């Protein structure tokens, strides 16, 4: 049993987004964080101080650890932002304004 079977989910067809240029599948309704988790990706940010990897921590929009760059816009909370077909998701380095 997986989560989708447990909930009896019948989502529409999967679509493709990219994470650091690599194609991954996403489902309608998922957040950016959920799509990345489903693809086995759990870190997508490097801290601006020590450059340490981070991903989801609180999962509900409180902690800001899951910040990510989506379609060129940095500092998006991956756990809140819905994923859209064709999104270009990139690992965020530091403040996201460095390069």
């Amino acid at each position, binding site marked *: 049993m997986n989560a989708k079977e447990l909930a009896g989910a019948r989502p529409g067809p999967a679509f493709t987004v990219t994470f650091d240029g690599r194609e991954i599948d996403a489902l*309608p309704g*998922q957040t950016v964080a959920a799509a990345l988790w489903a693809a086995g990706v759990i870190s997508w940010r490097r801290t601006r101080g020590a450059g340490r990897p981070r991903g989801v921590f609180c*999962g509900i929009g409180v902690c800001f650890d899951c910040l990510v760059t989506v379609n060129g816009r940095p500092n998006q909370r991956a756990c809140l932002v819905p994923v859209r077909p064709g999104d270009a998701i990139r690992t965020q380095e530091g403040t996201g304004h460095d390069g």
Partner: protein
Amino acid sequence: MADRPRLAVIGAGPAGLAAALAAAASGVRVTLVDSAPQAGGQFYRQPAAGLAARRSQAPHHHRRTWRRLRTGLDRQLAAGGVTHLADHHVWCVERHTDGFTVHALLGPAQEDGVTVDADAVVLATGGYEKVLPFPGWTLPGVVTAGGAQAMLKGGLVLPGRTVVVAGTGPLLLPVATGLAAAGARVAALVESADPKTLARHARVLSALPAKLAEGAGHAARLLRHRVPVLVGHVVVEAHGGERLDAVTVAALDAGGRVRPGTRRRIACGTLAVGHGMLPHTDLAATLGCRLDGVAVRVDDEQRTDVPGVWAAGEATGVGGADLALAEGHIAGRSAAARLTGRRSEARTWAAARSRAALRAFSAALDAVYAPPAHWAERITGDTLVCRCEEVPASAVRAAVGELGAGDVRTVKLLTRAGMGWCQGRMCAPAVAALAGCPPTPAGTPFARPVPLDVLAGQGPDARTGPPLDAPDGKDSHDD
């Protein structure tokens, strides 16, 4: 219809839904303002609409209550008694001579502002999970227990195949059983308290047999999924380089110290960890509501000490969904009575009796599931306390020991702990413990970051005149 009094309810979780339905049933026009795309809050979080799920994963009795609330809300939405503003992130509630203005940011991008006017307000802002730091807690793969549950409920995804659930509190049970039912291997449930001490509160427990049955149901599911349960144990360290690959757990002695020779390593890709909950009090504090410790102070009718402002649910002290439903119902009825000029007779309501029993129950849980003594001593110097500003425990200890800081605010000024994106929500309990002072709410003027052009549009001229000449660029908040 247009002259009916207007009540703004902030938050569409159990407390907010109960308040909105009770007030609307009494003839008040309700605007339910909530940040999520769908009603339900964290407790009744449903799979995202696009995932087209047919089954709720909640246990039966929660499902029944959710259906009752959902049906009630749908009826009121259709009848015009309640307006639901989803995807509205409230950053401030302003009190003025004519009533209240609720300021919100729209959608996940939260770049555009909107205001809602009301004659009275119910704050049902809920809470968030408390996580106490330990070495390795910033590694990818370490998530809050509630966060793992939220991602599972809302996105139907798991954080990894092998999970350890750890910390303290009643939330850990449904998180472990939920992850196991969804196909994760739960390698251990690590609870620092000993739930057997709940037996000391037999009188309180026997008043709420449904709560006991719920706990027993979770225990049976843990057994069925063969989840090993370690009580009186803690995670002392999370290991990994780029991501979590194992945790070390150890047994505690009666005094809360690690028992020598009990450390052992458990391989896992995910650690779901939590140590209870903290109330969201930013909006209440900005309005000037008095707080008791970290929770909003309310009277028998859930009124704050600011006229026209009620509060209900976790914001007034963490006690779970059933208590939130009772408090929300009382707040909604009380607010409606005041707004329509009727007597409230709150003491005669059935919800007031269940509120008393549920509060006694949550007090018993608090006594059993307190974090173990000496937990702060296990934070090593290089453990980051403030995740946003990357402040290690050694810097906080130096601020306290060498520079004389004796409170969270001074530590913040000396170290930047609590000055980052989350404004101290994640680090406040640890900073307070390391400073040796009681935890206090973050006390931020706004409940979330606000773009400068939205703030610029909220000046004294904004309500009466046309908006200021708004700049086209929307990315000022990113800099």
